[in-house]
């Protein structure tokens, strides 16, 4: 089989997976379905990263988003309902105006994307990126790297402080 055709099929599969899961996240009336659909969305995005040659980023996405943020969200879902509340239905409000806004945003963006000539400096070859990213963190991006660590410290302290139980 023609390799580019295979590549296209796989891309479309993951693209549809991602967008369809995102639609379930947004439209489903069950909170648990939304959370698990989000899991598939994150997986789909990680697959798209692999397609784009971002191997380190795909692994990071899986570890942090799926292994961290999604677990946090699931905890959030579980801990904010009473134990016997098996239904976990969620409600929506202003559905129709929201839908209109979404359609407007989508139309604007697709219009913009199809008409624009993005910068073209050529394509990046599909090389492994981990070493290069590591070097960049220590050179051009050292300031944001260090600031991010202080940022995480402060966020950690703050989040822990908010959730801490009252000391008896």
């Amino acid at each position, binding site marked *: 089989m023609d390799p580019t055709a295979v590549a296209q099929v796989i891309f479309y599969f993951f693209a549809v997976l991602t967008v369809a899961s995102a639609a379930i996240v947004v439209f489903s009336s069950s*909170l648990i379905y939304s959370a698990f659909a989000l899991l598939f969305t994150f997986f789909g995005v990680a697959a798209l990263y692999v397609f784009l*040659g971002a191997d380190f980023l795909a692994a990071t996405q899986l570890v942090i988003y799926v292994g961290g943020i999604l677990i946090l*969200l699931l905890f959030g879902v579980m801990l904010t309902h009473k134990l016997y509340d098996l239904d976990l239905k969620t409600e929506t409000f202003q559905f129709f105006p929201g839908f209109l806004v979404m359609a407007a945003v989508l139309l604007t963006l697709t219009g913009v994307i199809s008409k624009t000539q993005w910068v073209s400096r050529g394509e990046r070859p599909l090389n492994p*990126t981990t070493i290069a990213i590591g070097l960049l963190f220590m050179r051009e991006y050292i300031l944001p790297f260090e600031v991010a660590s202080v940022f995480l410290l402060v966020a950690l302290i703050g989040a822990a402080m*908010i959730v801490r139980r009252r000391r008896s």
Partner: protein
Amino acid sequence: MIGLNHYLFVSAALFSLGVMGVLTRKNAVNVLMGIELILNSANINLVAFSRYSVASLDGQIFAVFVIIIAAAEAAVALAIVLSMYRIVKSVNLDQADTLKG
């Protein structure tokens, strides 16, 4: 051939869905999911531009930082949601109305 625009359309769809989620959902955790969709869509943009337009790793590095920030934001948001739940016993946003004046 899969090109830049394919990825941009995917991310535009994710962004719109995220906006929809934020605007229409009542449950705070659901709104958070919408926010994560928005951030992921921006990340796809960055990586796609990095590969097809800019031909450097700048976009990917930016995406790593976005993931870092998203993680911290989700943690703080959930902490606040939990704290709210302890007091109000609900995280529906229409219960958060004692501040209206």
